[in-house]
């Protein structure tokens, strides 16, 4: 698939809460189709401590406005800089990168996300809707003050919510949510993105219940397009590049 490096224009920077924001970026040329689960590599200008690009999942693509958006959690220098971007600023992106969540043509899909890992669920919801599938969402946050975009997910499907402290939705981790209580599970496929611990727990649960499960890994990357071999994860077919063969993997293939 053709890849590009372009200066995007910041057309929106919307804080969700103290640690998360959504950047809306307009492409200088017509966007190619972006698949759910694909990511971009962002060049953080003007910072001596951010030498390498930073990878972010595409949160949403709006072809009518020719924009993509990123949902970003502030971690260090790079994401802090991104958080200060203003409308009119530019940001250089390499895109579109990586594979994507698989797209069942029918069946019931559960999209599970936690923290900034919810990012790709939105574009996935949109994508599934366009295939006439309404997925369920199960999103987990630390507490009520980090819960956001519930109405937007709701446009694409039913939304379940967990918070670690129980301040909103179910209390506890997503895997403790009643959605997972039934056996067999009413899903043909689970797609999950979130902290490592969450993905492991969900993968284990899915395996136990015999449901196909995909996760989107966030390994450290230098290039993002398959040439440095820094981002590898062990699979049943050996070391695979998370940036090319992934970031989405069938959990049954992973040795993690």
């Amino acid at each position, binding site marked *: 698939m053709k890849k590009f*490096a372009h200066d995007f224009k910041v057309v929106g920077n919307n804080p969700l809460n103290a640690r998360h924001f959504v950047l809306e970026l307009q492409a200088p040329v017509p966007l190619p189709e972006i698949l759910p689960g694909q990511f971009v590599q962002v060049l953080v200008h003007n910072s001596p401590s951010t*030498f390498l690009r930073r990878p972010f999942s595409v949160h949403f693509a709006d072809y009518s406005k020719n924009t993509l958006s990123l949902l970003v959690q502030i971690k260090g220098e790079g994401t802090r800089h991104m958080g200060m971007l203003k409308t009119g600023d530019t940001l250089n992106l390499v895109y579109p990168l990586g594979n994507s969540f698989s797209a069942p043509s029918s069946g019931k899909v559960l999209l599970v996300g936690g923290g900034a890992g919810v990012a790709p669920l939105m574009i996935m919801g949109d994508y599934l809707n366009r295939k006439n599938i309404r997925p369920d969402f199960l999103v987990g946050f630390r507490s009520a003050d980090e819960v956001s975009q519930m109405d937007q997910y709701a446009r694409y499907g039913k939304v379940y919510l967990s918070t670690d402290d129980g301040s909103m939705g179910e209390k506890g981790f997503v895997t403790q949510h009643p959605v997972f209580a039934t056996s067999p599970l009413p899903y043909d496929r689970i797609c999950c993105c979130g902290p490592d611990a969450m993905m492991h727990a969900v993968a284990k649960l899915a395996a136990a219940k015999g449901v196909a499960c995909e996760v989107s890994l966030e390994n450290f990357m230098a290039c993002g397009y*398959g040439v440095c071999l820094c981002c*590898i*994860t062990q699979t049943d077919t050996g*070391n695979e590049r998370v940036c090319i063969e992934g970031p989405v993997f069938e959990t049954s293939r992973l040795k993690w």
Partner: protein
Amino acid sequence: MQFKNPVTTASGCFGYGEEFKDFYDLGLLGGIFVKAVTGSNRPGNKYPRMAETASGMLNSVGLQNKGVDNFCKVIYPKIKDFNTQIIVNVSGSTIEEYVMVAERINELENIPAIELNISCPNVKEGGMAFGVVPSTATEVTRAVRGVYKKVLMVKLSPNVTSICEMAKAVVDGGADVLTLINTLLGMAVDAETRRPVISTITGGLSGPAIKPVALRMVWQVFKAVDVPIVGLGGIMNTTDAIEFMLAGASVIQVGTANFIDPMVAPKIAEGINEYLDRHNIASARDIVGALKVC
């Protein structure tokens, strides 16, 4: 052998070139130095394999590749007709392995040269060990020279007391061209977890951070030995490339910079032409080693 322009891409930073076809026409490049090839399949080192550092990065890939047989049968057919020079980076743990790989690559018609990697800091055996002791460096070069009939380049390690001594040692062994430099051995620590950042503790430092060391070594070797030099280490833009050529590099490689800007190599090729025009210099050859030192 001829390069259509002095800009090539460094081994380990450009895969086998195929990934970059998604970005631009590979014919814009002078050449491509492909990822290290060893005697047999190597899974490489454990994850994590990289750390970001000030104006640079550490890597510890550990020569992951599927071995020379796979290279000849699976990869070579896919890349042999790229409209640019393809040079294979040959690595190993023993002299026999280097020789075996070189012998196999020698048979590949569209590969005009190999780059002997005696400078990889990220493998337990062989690798850099060959590149830091002059007598061993001569020995491995001579052994490969015995079987390899085309252009033999040797890539030197900067982790030595005297780069000129190493350069002379491999030229004695029969090297036609010298590539310098490979990565500096470095380390990164996570103060919060109190652990090393990469699985092998130490790794190879690349990027602009090492450019001053690389330039110095190119210049020292340019004055000390009489073979062409392929220069690299932290080249990010045209100005950097010109600096290496002034210091004595006939050809330059772009390594880590490919990760920051995938389009950078053809931009540099273009930029060198603009520089030559602006300074009224007829050919890139005229600036090689042309540093004015008095």
